[in-house]
């Protein structure tokens, strides 16, 4: 690709998203990120939007601004996600709504609006985020795991719907990485979880960007509708 690529990463305020924003700016991408709050960093080549990823109007406005400024969008990384460790009998309905809104509705909205812009150039790479909690059937994470199971299905189907537009859609399923998302999980539970991986260690940010690098390569045009779990699940 001759021109500078434009990339959206959702959920860039902290954790994996923050790392990915820095990583892809350093690789020469123009990165546009978003989160509910402001970010505590400034990067040349990075622009931030404050929004809730499940707010349809705000998402549309963000993509409209990108269209007017850059006229293109090459990559979307749907990283924004929330979890809530809880037994089903103790899970309030509003927690379920929050998780589904951010993880499912947010991913859907960004995929839809990003694809509208990507299809203009008949090129696009979308990477969604799944989790090992789904295949490992992690107790206490029923809604989180279910929301990510929805992402797997969604990814497989829109990969077919968007194939004619030159857009690939894949997902990466990280193992636990030491971020805020897992802070509420007891250590013993976490150790048991790591023991179920073929490679029993926490994942790193670099493990994740390595998979994303592969999915978003121009040469990966024949790879779509796939999910890669880290750690050997």
């Amino acid at each position: 690709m001759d021109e500078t690529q434009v990339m959206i990463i959702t959920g860039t305020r902290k954790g994996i998203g923050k790392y990915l924003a820095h990583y892809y700016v350093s690789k020469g991408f123009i990165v546009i990120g978003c989160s509910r709050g402001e970010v505590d960093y400034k990067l040349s080549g990075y622009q931030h939007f404050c929004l809730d990823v499940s707010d349809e109007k705000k998402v549309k406005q963000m993509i409209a601004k990108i269209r007017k400024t850059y006229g293109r969008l090459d990559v979307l990384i749907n990283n924004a996600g929330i979890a809530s460790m809880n037994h089903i009998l103790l899970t309030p309905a509003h927690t379920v709504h929050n998780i589904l809104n951010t993880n499912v509705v947010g991913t859907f909205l960004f995929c839809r609006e990003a694809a509208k812009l990507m299809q203009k150039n008949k090129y696009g790479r979308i990477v969604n985020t799944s989790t090992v909690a789904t295949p490992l059937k992690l107790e206490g994470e029923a809604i989180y795991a279910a929301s990510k199971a929805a992402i797997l299905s969604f990814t497989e189907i829109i990969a077919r719907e968007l194939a004619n537009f030159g857009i690939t859609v894949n997902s990466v399923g990280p193992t636990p990485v030491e971020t805020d998302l897992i802070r509420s999980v007891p250590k013993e539970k976490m150790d048991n979880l790591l023991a179920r991986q073929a490679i029993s260690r926490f994942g790193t940010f670099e493990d994740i960007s390595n998979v994303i690098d592969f999915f978003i390569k121009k040469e990966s045009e024949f790879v779509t509708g796939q999910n890669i779990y880290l750690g050997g699940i």
Partner: protein
Amino acid sequence: MYEKIVNLIIMQAEELNETLENKIPAELGASASLFDGKDGILDSIALVTLIVAVEQSVEDEFETSIILANEKAMSLKNSPFKTIGSLAEYIVILLNEENTNG
């Protein structure tokens, strides 16, 4: 507003025509047939492409975001995607709704 939108759709249709074998008869203006669910001029991919292009040009022209393929449009007995004219009428309704609701 209606005429302006008809012209916007015609412009987008003409652009899309460059990539189509079965071309939209944009020269017929508002009565030009688009899609009737069975054997309309456009296949579904071309219809999606046209809808997205029209959404974006409406957004640029009127500084208002609308979503053309919403539930209402899909369930309307007389599909707004039948002709350029019916699509323009539908967009006028959506823009008015958007301006009323803010």
